[in-house]
């Protein structure tokens, strides 16, 4: 019998960590036991994006979307759905909203995907990343063939320029222009580098593209090589992405076997090959000159620009460096034309952007939206809003280099320039949502803590300045700050922005500046009233038992610090000197009689 159904099991890192590989094996085993192995195929794919509901399994052709699948559900899904054709309802996806709760949704109807436009993620979750034939079945390498046989290198650059594609790694530099600058420089050797050193905490779109559709990046690098006249490419990827590394290396091997990398590709005389370089996971190595130094075997530190890499890059040769997501867009632009691509998005930001939605949001995951979509649509329509009925407070975009936007910015269309105008940035596309229980001073401290850790130490403003800023922030969260500290913080922040050597230092103060601008009252509450309104900064909290206390003695018995006194049936008291502010008493109180002030 021909294959009549295919079971797609998500094999992205998120789902793998909740045992999706065991789920895949269980499907294979159960399908075999039922004698269906000739007619039903099991395929492991890349990330489907809706990580919150993982592990995810989709059954085709009916497009049934199963979420939160566990190994023990597999026999049921097999015997009910695959054998008897009845959807196994307990695991079928239902929307989180009330009115939709009862309805089972098939993959095509899930609201999370409806508002999205998947270009860079077009094949993620759709194909088997270990099978080059499936990628080719989805048009992989057709754009490369078209470029090599129909276009001259300068025509390729022209298409990319006209498409309006800008770098998706953070800076937003026009990709076509970058290629043109490099193509103009004559040299015996040039290089194409794919920057897969995804370092923003919480961002994982590049990992997902490499895990789900590695051939799109390989193809785009070859196209870039043809356009600028390079015959060698490197993918610089962090070693802490083992699944992505394995799939990428396997894909490169397959592409070589098919002659899509190597000598005389498509009989055009064009040669191109790719090698993988593993990074040790330093944030600064996402900066292009530091990345180049790291590939060369030097310490990963940035240097002054100019000369730009397009002029003097890897081993002193002209080099272009493009981010994974940027590259994943290239083949589609070639196949569908620049007119198509530039019709999507806003005036100065074309196409789509992938965001890693995280924090206090219902649908954690990867979303790809057209530029110009508003923050509200992303957070509420796609993300489902904050969980547990909490109020939305802020959204942090751009990771440690970005800033916090508030409810008043929710209707801003997302594009490069709008975000910068509001004091944040696109960055690589991290989007962390915060609710009323997040303290903005603490959030700023968290991100600065990260940059202080990751600062390479080469230039003084970044090395010393961020550290001093962190000290002031710590002082504030401990209740020892003064109003003058806020001014000093701002002054330092501006100085570091202006005088740091590379993007890391230049953007490191952003989380502080944007929270100072949008949530100054919270800073003031910390330094003047010595209170943390969100109840996060422990040194500023006092735990008090109200008159609702019934004297059950539970808090007294549970307190790890013996800070609570009181007799049975009498009101209890907390000794502030002994209290370690762990919150155990609050959680355990049957009358909610303990409040945090």
């Amino acid at each position, binding site marked *: *019998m*021909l*294959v*009549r*159904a*295919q079971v*797609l099991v998500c094999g992205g890192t998120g789902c793998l960590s909740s045992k999706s590989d065991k789920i895949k094996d269980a499907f294979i085993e159960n399908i075999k036991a039922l004698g269906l192995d000739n*007619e039903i195929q099991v395929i492991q794919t890349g990330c489907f994006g809706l990580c919150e509901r993982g592990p995810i399994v989709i059954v*085709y*052709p*009916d497009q049934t979307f199963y979420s939160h699948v566990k190994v023990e559900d597999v026999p049921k899904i097999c015997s009910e759905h695959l*054998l*008897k*054709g*009845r959807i196994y309802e307990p695991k079928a996806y239902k929307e989180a909203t009330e009115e939709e709760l009862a309805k089972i949704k098939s993959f*095509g109807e899930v609201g999370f995907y409806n508002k999205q436009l998947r270009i860079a993620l077009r094949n993620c979750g*759709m*194909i088997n990343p270990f099978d080059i*034939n*499936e990628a*080719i*079945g*989805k*048009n992989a*390498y*057709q754009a490369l*063939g078209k470029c090599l*046989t129909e276009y001259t290198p300068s025509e390729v650059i022209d298409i990319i320029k006209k498409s309006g594609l800008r770098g998706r790694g953070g800076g937003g530099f026009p990709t076509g222009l970058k290629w043109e600058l490099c193509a103009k420089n004559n040299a015996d050797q040039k290089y194409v580098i794919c920057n897969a050193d995804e370092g923003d905490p919480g961002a994982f779109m590049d990992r997902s593209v490499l895990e789900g559709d590695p051939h799109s990046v390989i193809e785009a690098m070859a196209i870039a090589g043809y356009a600028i006249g390079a015959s060698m490419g490197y993918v610089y990827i962090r070693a802490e992405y083992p699944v992505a590394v394995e799939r990428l290396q396997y894909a490169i091997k397959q592409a070589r076997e*098919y*002659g*899509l990398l190597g000598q*005389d*590709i*498509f*009989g055009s005389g064009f040669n191109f090959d790719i090698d993988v370089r593993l990074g040790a996971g330093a944030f600064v190595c996402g900066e292009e000159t530091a990345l180049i130094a790291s590939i060369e075997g030097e310490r990963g530190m940035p240097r002054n620009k100019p000369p730009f890499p397009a002029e003097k890059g890897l081993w002193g040769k002209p080099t272009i460096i493009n981010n994974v997501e940027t590259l994943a867009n290239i083949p589609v632009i070639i196949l569908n034309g620049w007119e198509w691509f530039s019709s999507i998005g806003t005036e100065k930001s074309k196409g789509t952007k992938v965001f890693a939605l995280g924090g206090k949001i219902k649908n954690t995951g990867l979303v790809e939206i057209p530029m110009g979509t508003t923050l509200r649509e992303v957070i509420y329509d796609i993300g489902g809003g904050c969980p547990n009925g909490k109020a939305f407070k802020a959204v942090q975009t751009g990771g440690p280099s970005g800033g916090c936007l508030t409810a008043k910015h929710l209707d801003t269309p997302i594009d490069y320039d709008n975000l910068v105008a509001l004091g944040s940035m696109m960055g690589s596309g991290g989007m962390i949502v915060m609710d009323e229980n997040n303290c903005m001073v603490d959030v700023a401290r968290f991100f600065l803590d990260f940059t202080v850790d990751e600062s390479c130490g080469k230039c003084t403003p970044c090395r010393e300045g961020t550290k001093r800023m962190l000290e002031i922030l710590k002082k504030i969260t401990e209740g020892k700050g003064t109003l003058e500290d806020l001014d000093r913080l701002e002054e330092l922040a501006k100085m570091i922005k202006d005088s740091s050597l590379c993007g890391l230092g230049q953007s490191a103060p952003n989380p502080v500046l944007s929270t100072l601008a949008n949530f100054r009252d919270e800073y003031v509450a910390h330094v003047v009233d010595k209170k943390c309104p969100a109840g996060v900064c422990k040194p500023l909290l006092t735990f008090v038992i109200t008159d609702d206390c019934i004297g059950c003695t539970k808090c007294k018995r549970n307190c790890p610090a013996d800070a609570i006194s009181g007799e049975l049936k009498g009101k209890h008291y907390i000794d502030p000197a002994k209290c370690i502010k762990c919150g155990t008493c609050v959680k355990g109180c049957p009358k909610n009689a303990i409040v945090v002030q």
Partner: protein
Amino acid sequence: MKSLAELKKIREEAANRMNLRAAKDGYRVAVGMATCGITAGARPVLAAFVEKVAKENLDNVIVTQVGCLGECALEPVVEVFDAEGNRTTYAKVHVEDVDKIVEEHLKGGKVVTEKTLEVIKNAK
């Protein structure tokens, strides 16, 4: 890879294998595959539909299976839904009927009247 034609050949073969995963808006053929259907011989019928649809390159047709439709005495039961959602229920469908349903209904748009549930039921 030395030519675009070579790539095209691989692409077409792979696209055929992945056709199950493409979005479709044509007919949907649902074969009743509960215990009653299976014992009445629904499995070979399902197989015959899958094969015939693939052979005829009917890219827009989904062949799937469903549970018991309630007419256990008239199994195997096969339902055909068109794009507007109109439903035709066939009863006592056997492998030898599949060609005709595919040819006349899925390709020609004409219901195979003699195999519909109503006709079979009244004939009893």
